[in-house]
């Protein structure tokens, strides 16, 4: 697998909410090589604080050599990135890691919580160009409140998916956990793709296990390198030892890891 280090340029900055930003970046080598579920390591500036690169899922790719990342401001790195305007250069390394299995063997469902929605859009885009392009496949999206979801839900619908939403405050769709929407659908599908907070992925993983349905999760851990070198990004593996999320993942089969965390 080949990774590239590219000095990308921001071409578009969208403010979905004051806390949620989408950056489109010109990074032709990474965009051309990227597969759904893979990620980039972004350097937030030339300075030494913050020091480490930040990992972000590849949210979409476009044929003009751009890709997008979608993120929430949670600390100093994401705050710096949220303030960057079009024209700003951002060093990216990617595409990194193993992405989603692109052959679901039948009907499938995507479930995204919060910023976990980011990689699913690229997956949804990719299926439109594959044999799995039939309309109305279910996509379940959850967040705290509607502001974060409105645009994203519409974009999945435009691709032809059947979108169901859930919000903690009930401002859009079902009030409660997005995982509660899964029970209805589970009998009709062969494969689930899920990305979101750990408790949510654990719930989905257990439901799928009980129903005997394949489930792929996209995991998050702290990362220093994203290249398999620092051995910092571990997640406990079934059968002992650890998975290295940057190399073995970030997408793994739910039964490869231990969900006690």
């Amino acid at each position: 697998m080949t990774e590239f280090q590219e000095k990308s340029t921001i071409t578009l900055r969208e403010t979905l909410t004051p806390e949620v930003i989408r950056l489109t970046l010109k990074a032709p080598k990474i965009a051309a090589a990227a597969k759904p579920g893979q990620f980039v390591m972004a350097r937030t500036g030339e300075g030494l604080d913050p020091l480490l690169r930040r990992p972000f899922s590849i949210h979409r790719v476009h044929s003009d050599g751009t890709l997008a990342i979608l993120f929430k401001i949670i600390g100093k790195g994401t705050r710096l990135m949220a303030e960057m305007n079009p024209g700003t250069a951002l060093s990216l390394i990617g595409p990194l890691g193993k992405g989603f299995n692109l052959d679901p063997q039948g009907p499938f469902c995507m479930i995204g919580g919060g910023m976990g929605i980011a990689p699913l859009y690229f997956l949804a885009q990719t299926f439109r160009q594959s044999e799995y392009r039939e309309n109305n496949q279910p996509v379940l999206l959850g967040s705290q409140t509607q502001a974060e979801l409105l645009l994203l839900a519409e974009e999945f619908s435009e691709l032809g998916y059947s979108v169901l939403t859930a919000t903690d405050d009930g401002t859009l769709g079902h009030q409660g956990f997005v995982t509660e929407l899964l029970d209805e659908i589970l009998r009709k599908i062969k494969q689930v793709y899920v990305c979101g907070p750990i408790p949510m992925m654990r719930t989905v993983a257990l439901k799928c296990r009980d129903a005997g349905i394949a489930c792929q999760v996209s995991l998050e851990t702290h990362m220093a390198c994203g290249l398999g070198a620092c051995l910092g990004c571990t997640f406990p593996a079934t059968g002992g030892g650890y998975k290295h999320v940057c190399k073995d993942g970030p997408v793994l089969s739910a039964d490869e890891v231990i969900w006690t965390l």
Partner: protein
Amino acid sequence: MDPINTNHSVDMRVTIGDLQLGNPVMTASGTFGYGREFASLVDLNRLGAIIVKGISQEPRPGNPPPRIIETACGMLNAIGLENVGVERFITDKLPYLQQFDTPVIVNVLGESIDDYANLAARLERVEGIAAVEVNISCPNVRKGGVAFGTDATMAAAVTSAVRQQTRLPVIVKLSPNVTDVCAIARAVEDAGADAVSLINTLLGMSIDIKTRKPRLANVVGGLSGPAIKPVALRMVWQTAKAVAIPVIGIGGIGTTEDALEFLMAGATAVQVGTANFYHPTSVMDIVDGLEQYVHEQGMASVRAVINSLQV
């Protein structure tokens, strides 16, 4: 700035014991995997040497997560010396590295003096290894977990055990978590080390005030990166005055200027660690930058920089 001079006629060679290096820039153990991880970003042929992740006799799974935490201008790690073990290193990792001209230095770690001796003996019988670097910052399980590197007698005992088992150059990697690094350096020099490298990480910790929990599962971890550079430089300078064998400088090096400071303080070569994570091409940038510096200063070779500090 002037365009980088890529004129390879500049004499960049240095020697560490019997080991000849094409240039003084190496990758620090644990920050460059087994080399291959960086192959699409870094031209491995341009490095002075590659030092691989620390190897033990048996594979080690390492510590539970979280293992790494960013701190101001640095990071803490508690990887727990995870590695594939010496046999899998030899069969799975080393062959890839042998296609390059770059010397491969194997960093070794153990829990007892026998572990170190056995590793040295095993590696002695393998083609394609240029030197061993002995990580003595590991806990000695027979001595209640005190790190070998914090006691001059234990450090010397490890060094002579390794020395007796191998003809390869032996580099002993010193821990900074000591009162007098010079005493340890002299002890390992007397025990037969061909060189010393320093510093390993500084013991540190970080607390999440919301949960009142340590941020690392292991509670404490090793601090590395630009934050430790002044401490590392001071220790390298003191050590270079205390011993006659070559000193290899490590700690927070990410730019040509950083590398020059270490060479001026008396280091014969340098290792780049944490910078490989945030700026993987820094090793190549430093090789280019040193070459340009030597050229601009009209020096005969990079060796003229070593120990050129004017106090």
